């Protein structure tokens, strides 16, 4: 019956169950020695999908190692949807649980989170970023009550590893045009990803800036977000931070003034 045959194909391909493939041949599949062509097509094509989504990791571990990781990932987390631009969201979680990879390169899961954020931003819905002039007419006392919505492409990733430095090691299909700050520091880094128009930006944020954007993402007013930022970083500079996000396109064009 068709459901059994299809289940056996799944087991014999992504399930890597040699007995299932043999049973298909015993059950009347002809030229069964070619069954491996299907298994090969599936693993190879999905490895290609993951290479495109995680080019830095592919570059850092090398093609052969990446193929091993990809094959194990495909077997553990097969795609559940045919639109493969959305395949790979579980790669970071998979890497975190994959001892051989994490043992040597413990930053890999967080780097995968940055690369996935870039992938999501690339395919996310388009929207108009907030222009600086939009706030110009507002009285200064109104600022604290503003709720600035984030652009739909914005993603935040915090890591104990220098993921922003690491991510820069491989060019992406749509690389950021933004210049990077000259100082490259080690240790923990916080990254904001956004795509205000066609290009994806990957920006390193200070602890205060990261807390600021995180608070806005949680629905806080500008005043509350500034307080959270000052708590995270003594030298937090609100006006410089706002100016950077306004010119970079971090905010959505819809602005709500909280009059309460």
């Amino acid at each position, binding site marked *: *019956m*068709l*459901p059994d*045959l*299809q*289940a056996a*194909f*799944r087991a014999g*391909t*992504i399930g890597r169950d040699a007995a299932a493939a043999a049973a298909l041949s015993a059950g*009347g*599949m*002809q*030229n*069964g*020695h*070619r*069954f*491996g*062509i*299907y298994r090969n*097509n*599936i693993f190879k*094509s*999905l490895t290609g*999908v993951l290479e495109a989504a995680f080019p830095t990791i592919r570059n850092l571990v090398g093609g052969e190692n990446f193929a091993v990781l990809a094959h194990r990932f495909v077997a553990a987390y*097969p*795609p*559940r*949807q*045919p*639109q*493969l*631009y*959305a395949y790979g969201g579980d790669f970071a979680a998979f890497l975190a649980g994959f001892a051989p990879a994490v043992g040597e390169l413990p930053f890999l899961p967080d780097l995968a989170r940055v690369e996935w954020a870039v992938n999501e931003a*690339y*395919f*996310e*819905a*388009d*929207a108009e970023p907030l222009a600086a002039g939009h706030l110009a007419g507002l009285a200064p006392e109104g600022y604290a009550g503003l709720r600035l919505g984030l652009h739909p492409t914005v993603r935040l990733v915090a890591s104990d590893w220098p993921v922003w430095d690491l991510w820069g090691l491989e060019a992406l*299909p*749509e690389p950021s045009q933004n210049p990077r700050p000259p100082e490259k520091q080690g240790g923990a880094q916080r990254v904001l990803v956004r*795509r205000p128009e*066609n290009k994806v930006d990957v920006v390193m944020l200070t602890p205060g800036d990261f807390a600021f954007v995180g608070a806005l993402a949680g629905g806080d007013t500008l005043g509350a977000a500034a307080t959270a930022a000052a708590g995270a970083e003594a030298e937090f500079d609100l006006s410089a931070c706002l100016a950077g996000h306004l010119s970079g396109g971090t905010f959505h064009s819809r602005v709500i003034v909280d009059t309460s």
Partner: protein
Amino acid sequence: MALERENGLAESFARDPVPAAAGIGLRHTHYGDFLDGRPATAWLEVHSENYVCPGGPRMATLEAVRQHYPLSCHGVGLSLGSAEGLDAGHLARLRSLVDRFEPGLVSEHVSWSTTGGDYLNDLLPLPYTEEALDVLVGNIGQAQDALGRTILIENPSSYVTFAESTIPEWEFCAEAARRSGCGLLLDVNNIHVSAHNHGYDALEFLNGIPGELVGEIHIAGHADTEWDGRPVLIDDHGSTVKDAVWDLLDTALARIGPKPVLMEWDLDLPPLDILLGEAAKAQAALDRLAPHGPGLGSRAMDDAA
């Protein structure tokens, strides 16, 4: 009955019909060529699953390019042969795609990819049985209802067959089209690959296809290689079209008449000029057909009557 069906096909494709001329696939590698200029191709085909994302440069590119070319949306992920039925969410995404871009043609495959909710990213073979035919016809019906239009279904290339099959592949495809009211996308490279791999005559396949149901033809390159130490043709869409497939295209066009012909290339994409060169050969095959082809032949008969 046949006439009603044909009118149905023609009507749903009327908004911006894909012409009976040679077209090529639009691939990321060639976005720049199409954004910077207006390459000479009569129409374009895209893989539907690549354009169901919410936004971003892919969608913007297709939006811009669509203004200048008739479009065909060719699905590779709907899994019309799945015993468990279709993914309603994916059908809804495809509906949004066709509503937004209004393609002249929408097509899918006589194959399956999804089982137990897992998407095995390949066009997997069906046994050609009454059971599988019922599944396929039911799923095509669901797809056409969800999309609000007629689709074409493409004969696949394959590497294995099943002893339980009771229906020749060409009859299976034609019968699915008759029962569901869809049309056929005749892939002559797939006919050649499968005929070679399974030891049947490609011409028998062609002769078993009702020409009036064919709405599009595909050609592509394949790899003449070995698997497990034994020779096999693999449908990799990674090279120019082989001579045997050009011959089969001529035979198909002579039998069926002029149709939109797509030059497919998906692996190791060459510069656009090479792809357009292959499409030009397909156009030459269509042009050679013109004085004697069934299309003009029947028109001449109408004029005489």
